[in-house]
């Protein structure tokens, strides 16, 4: 197809053709085109359908504020819904499809909604679909949901990657139009570290869209020269295709750089987009202004667009929506469109200006004091109907209408910290208020300085002021000459005459009538208006529509526009791909992986791993022929209890505590006493939160008078360390105590089972006596192993067996596990994983994560007496509160099922054998359960009301969620070796 609406000139590279498709139809454009400009050049006006009524819509704008021309870009897993044709850079092979239509864009069956629009007014759904109640989910809502949304996701995994980066600068300049370039030149020449970001692929802003000269060159050429100069400065980073999405606290800005969106696929090794976090000393907003439409009957037909956009398409992209156009305006700027299009050889039927005294600027028919009262053309504009100044009607034939209702300074980023814009009557628009984000200034059209001269000047002046603040001497260069036309505008928001609907929010199909209805029903505050009508809630966030709705509400309420209020903007400036915000943290890389020192060895053994926080731990070690995890786990448990096993326990937190006050410090953080712990001994410690609830538990060893090593649970290693530092720095700042986390410095293995000592004796150097007499239960000390390697040995036991934990510097962890396995061959030493570890600790009734659930007291653990009343420890005072010490308090007990093969369900609730099974009669719950290969029975431990006094009682264990209801007997939680003979052996 020919580019029938392509004009001469423009900033496109006609030497190259780019082929693309829209709804399967092939077209040709050129480098420099956007999808919208290329479609326009090819004579396409209809580009989309609206959300609610499926009205045919064409392009309204030439920028990221576009509400209508949204397409699904690309295909397959790269399908990208709701992409603005106005900002999509054309590339060879681009595929785009229209959205929200069936079966086709030109014939959309859902457009039947438009026939019923009178029934589907703002908020109609709040008033109906209520009867019968069940029909909402079954009938009404499914129909509504079927119609939801515009574009669709592929539901395939995004194949592209995304990166994140961090930048620092003295001055971030947002927008590279005349103000931004002028500011960047001033700051760049002065040596400041400058970042200049612009969402467009070509810097220059409106200079690329207008025909103004700067000094004696065309604006676009001046911009190109300025960019070239900035490009040569080492202290300036130019970031085209980069949208500053939000201004956050303390001068931090988020920016999205579209690295590869202008390419068919990202180059190898390149990401699709980058999220930059920009740390700025100062920021200057030079984001320009956004034109606003005038509402009139049927103002939404394809071919009706903003006058400034029409001019941009003609000047920059050499495209026109039609060969014969008209302009409808309330200000001088609209006339420029007529003038520029005529200069390109487009016929301009008339300039229709609502102002009776409109000036003659373009050399075409001027209809002053006239208004557009209707339009026609089903899939594209063909006629506009006017009411002329003399009261007569007139019909003008044209294929496009440029509309200008004035310009709104683009104050978006000034509002991101909830700053409110202020009304400037001189330009009939909101300008940045005084409560700007810390460190932010505004220049150019964004500050209401609309002429090219004013933009250049304010950019330079603001930059100079900022440099002054930062103590950098500003470069004083001559300001180039440029037009300085005043803003002549008569506020005019909507044409009251006309029978058709007058559209405000074209994507969400909000009309002037909807605003009136909202007013009538008392949804009058700006926020109620938005929420009730959905005005400004679409993908463009009301950049072209909010102002009109506000003005009409002001009229209805008899108030001024600022009297009604304004809605503020929230980040992001334009919508941001979730992938970009997620970056590389997805899939297997969602969180970093921490591997234990024995990981490589365990992998060689074929271990099955399990996540424990960020750690990966061996869960069990399957052997050939084992087909079910239980076979492996049962074997591992029997092996430990029968001979000896080894388990990597490095993940437990280790905190080194040193200093003359170390013992006093531990006495504060543990509820039980530590002051009298002998050197060479280890003690179980119970750590409470200040509210008296158990925070963590573990063993702490005293290696020297002033040196302890604390262990924490794997899950609490970080919070416990933080807590200890709080106690040290904030509560007892003069204690002589130092802390350091050594979790990753030591590889630690549990060696457990009746042959544990024999095994260790083979590797501990002969000079160290680890006999039961010399190194009894709870002993600890420094040893050397394997001929001189320093190690720490602790005789502690989680399994209930004769057991040790042995620690060596982490880099020897792999060697140690291999040595233990080799040395233990004669005992058939068995590596065991976290499952067997869990089974054995349940058999011993030791509390772990499931028991220490953040609501557990020492009393619940049947360790109430450990909380010393003789000293001040964190949590001891508040643990005395009555509610934590009721007579029927939960106590940790064990449960045996009546039939050993019946599974005990962790999370099951306990009920009295007789009586109702409901929450009111709840007696407690099972926290942990397993199959005990030692008892040949399923077992469980858990909390039971008055549990200590109910040994032998039979209860029902119910788990309606898993369909269980069995009888269990209350027993001691110490199923195996309750007297502890084995661990002292």
């Amino acid at each position, binding site marked *: 197809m020919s580019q029938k609406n392509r004009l001469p000139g423009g900033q496109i590279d006609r030497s190259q053709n780019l082929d693309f498709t829209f709804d399967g139809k092939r077209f040709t454009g050129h480098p420099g085109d956007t999808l919208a400009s290329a479609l326009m050049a090819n004579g396409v006006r209809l580009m989309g359908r609206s959300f609610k009524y499926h009205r045919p819509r064409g392009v309204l704008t030439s920028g990221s504020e576009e509400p209508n021309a949204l397409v699904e870009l690309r295909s397959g897993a790269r399908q990208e819904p709701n992409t603005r044709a106005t900002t999509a850079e054309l590339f060879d092979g681009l595929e785009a499809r229209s959205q929200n239509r069936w079966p086709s864009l030109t014939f959309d069956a859902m457009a039947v909604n438009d026939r019923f629009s009178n029934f589907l007014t703002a908020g109609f759904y709040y008033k109906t679909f209520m009867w019968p109640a069940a029909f909402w989910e079954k009938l009404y809502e499914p129909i509504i949901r079927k119609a939801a949304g515009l574009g669709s996701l592929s539901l395939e995994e995004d194949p592209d990657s995304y990166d994140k980066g961090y930048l620092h600068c003295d001055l971030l300049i947002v927008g590279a139009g005349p103000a931004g370039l002028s500011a960047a030149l001033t700051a760049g020449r002065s040596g400041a570290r400058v970042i200049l970001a612009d969402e467009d692929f070509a810097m220059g802003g409106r200079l690329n869209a207008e025909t103004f000269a700067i000094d004696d060159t065309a604006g676009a050429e001046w911009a190109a020269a300025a960019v070239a100069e900035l490009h040569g400065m080492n202290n300036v980073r130019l970031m085209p295709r980069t949208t500053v999405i939000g201004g956050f606290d303390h001068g931090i800005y988020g920016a999205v750089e579209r690295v590869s969106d202008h390419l068919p696929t990202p180059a190898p090794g390149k990401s699709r987009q980058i999220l930059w976090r920009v740390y700025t000393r100062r920021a200057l907003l030079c984001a320009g202004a956004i034109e606003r439409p005038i509402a009139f009957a049927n103002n939404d037909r394809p071919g009706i667009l903003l006058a400034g956009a029409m001019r941009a398409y003609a000047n920059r992209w050499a495209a026109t929506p039609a060969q014969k156009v008209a302009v409808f305006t309330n200000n001088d700027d609209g006339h420029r469109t007529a003038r520029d299009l005529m200069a390109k050889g487009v016929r301009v039927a008339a300039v229709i200006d609502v102002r009776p005294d409109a000036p003659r600027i373009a050399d075409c028919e001027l209809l002053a004091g006239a208004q557009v009262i209707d339009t026609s053309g089903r899939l594209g504009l063909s006629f506009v109907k006017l009411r002329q100044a003399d009261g007569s009607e007139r019909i003008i034939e044209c294929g496009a209408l440029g509309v200008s209702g004035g310009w709104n300074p683009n104050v978006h980023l000034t509002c991101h910290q909830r700053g409110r814009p202020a009304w400037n009557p001189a330009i009939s628009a909101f300008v940045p208020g005084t409560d700007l984000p810390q460190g932010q200034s505004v220049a150019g059209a964004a500050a209401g300085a609309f002429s090219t001269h004013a933009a250049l000047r304010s950019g330079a002046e603001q930059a100079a002021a900022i440099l002054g603040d930062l103590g950098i001497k500003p470069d004083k260069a001559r300001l180039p000459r440029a037009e300085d036309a005043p803003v002549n505008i008569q506020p005019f928001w909507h044409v009251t005459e006309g029978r058709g609907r007058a559209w405000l929010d074209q994507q969400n199909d909000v009309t002037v009538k909807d605003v009136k209805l909202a007013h009538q029903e008392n949804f009058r505050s700006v926020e109620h208006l938005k929420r009730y009508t959905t005005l400004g809630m679409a993908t463009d966030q009301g950049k072209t529509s909010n102002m009109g709705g506000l003005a009409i509400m002001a009229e209805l309420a008899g108030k001024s526009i600022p009297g009604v209020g304004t809605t503020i903007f929230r980040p992001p400036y334009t919508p941001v791909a979730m992938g970009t915000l997620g970056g590389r943290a997805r899939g297997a890389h969602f969180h970093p992986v921490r591997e234990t020192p024995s990981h490589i060895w365990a992998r060689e053994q074929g271990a099955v791993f399990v996540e424990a926080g960020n750690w990966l731990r061996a869960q069990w070690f399957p052997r050939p022929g084992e087909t079910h995890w239980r076979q492996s786990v049962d074997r591992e448990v029997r092996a430990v209890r029968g001979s000896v096993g080894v388990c990597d326990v490095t993940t437990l937190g280790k905190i080194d505590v040193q200093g003359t006050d170390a013992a006093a410090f531990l006495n504060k953080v543990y509820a039980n006493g530590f002051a009298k712990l002998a050197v060479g001994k280890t003690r179980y410690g119970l750590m409470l939160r200040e509210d008296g609830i158990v925070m963590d538990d573990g063993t702490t060893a005293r290696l020297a008078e002033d040196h302890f090593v604390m262990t924490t649970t794997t899950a609490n290693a970080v919070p416990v360390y933080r807590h200890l530092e709080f106690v040290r720095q904030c509560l*007892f*700042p003069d204690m002589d105590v130092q802390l350091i986390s050594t979790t990753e410095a030591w590889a630690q293995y549990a060696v457990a089972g009746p042959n544990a000592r024999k095994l260790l004796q083979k590797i501990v150097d002969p000079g160290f006596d680890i006999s039961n007499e010399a190194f009894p239960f709870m002993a600890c000390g420094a040893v050397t192993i394997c001929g001189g390697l320093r190690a720490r040995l602790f005789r502690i036991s989680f399994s209930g067996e004769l057991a040790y934990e042995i620690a060596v510097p982490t880099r020897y962890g792999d060697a140690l596990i291999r040595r233990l396995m080799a040395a233990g061959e004669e005992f058939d030493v068995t590596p065991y994983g976290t499952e067997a570890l869990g089974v054995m600790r349940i058999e011993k009734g030791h509390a772990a994560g499931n028991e220490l659930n953040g609501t557990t007291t020492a009393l619940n653990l049947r360790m109430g007496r450990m909380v010393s009343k003789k000293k001040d420890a964190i949590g001891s005072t508040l643990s005395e509160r009555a509610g934590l010490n009721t007579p029927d308090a939960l106590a940790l007990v064990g449960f045996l099922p009546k039939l050993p093969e019946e599974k005990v369900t962790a999370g099951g609730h306990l009920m009295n054998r007789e009586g109702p099974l409901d929450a009111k009669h709840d007696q407690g719950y099972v926290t942990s359960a397993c199959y005990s290969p030692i008892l040949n029975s399923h077992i469980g431990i858990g909390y039971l009301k008055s549990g200590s006094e109910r040994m032998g009682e039979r209860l029902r264990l119910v788990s309606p969620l898993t369909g269980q209801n069995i009888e269990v007997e209350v027993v001691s939680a110490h199923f195996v070796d309750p007297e502890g003979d084995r661990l002292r052996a």
Partner: protein
Amino acid sequence: MMIDHPLLGPRDAQEFTYLGDASLIDRPDWQAEDAVDQFHDYLYLRDNPAGEHRELWFHEVGDRSWLVVTRNTLTHQITSVELARDVARSRGRSK
């Protein structure tokens, strides 16, 4: 947010972990007659001001200092950052 660490200079607040009101430094005397009430007020009740707030941040992925940051809860503006240990000493905490 940026926190101007007294020892390390400006750092992204993401390096820190937040605890809460700096009054948590003022832990009551466990031997007071109404110790339970005092501890209750200390641990559970907050001024929760809309405005200037002195609060505790822990430089968890940094130097592990606890800091007292004075920050406005309406604007997030930070006006002072001190080492919590210094603050604690100045409030009479010792051993």
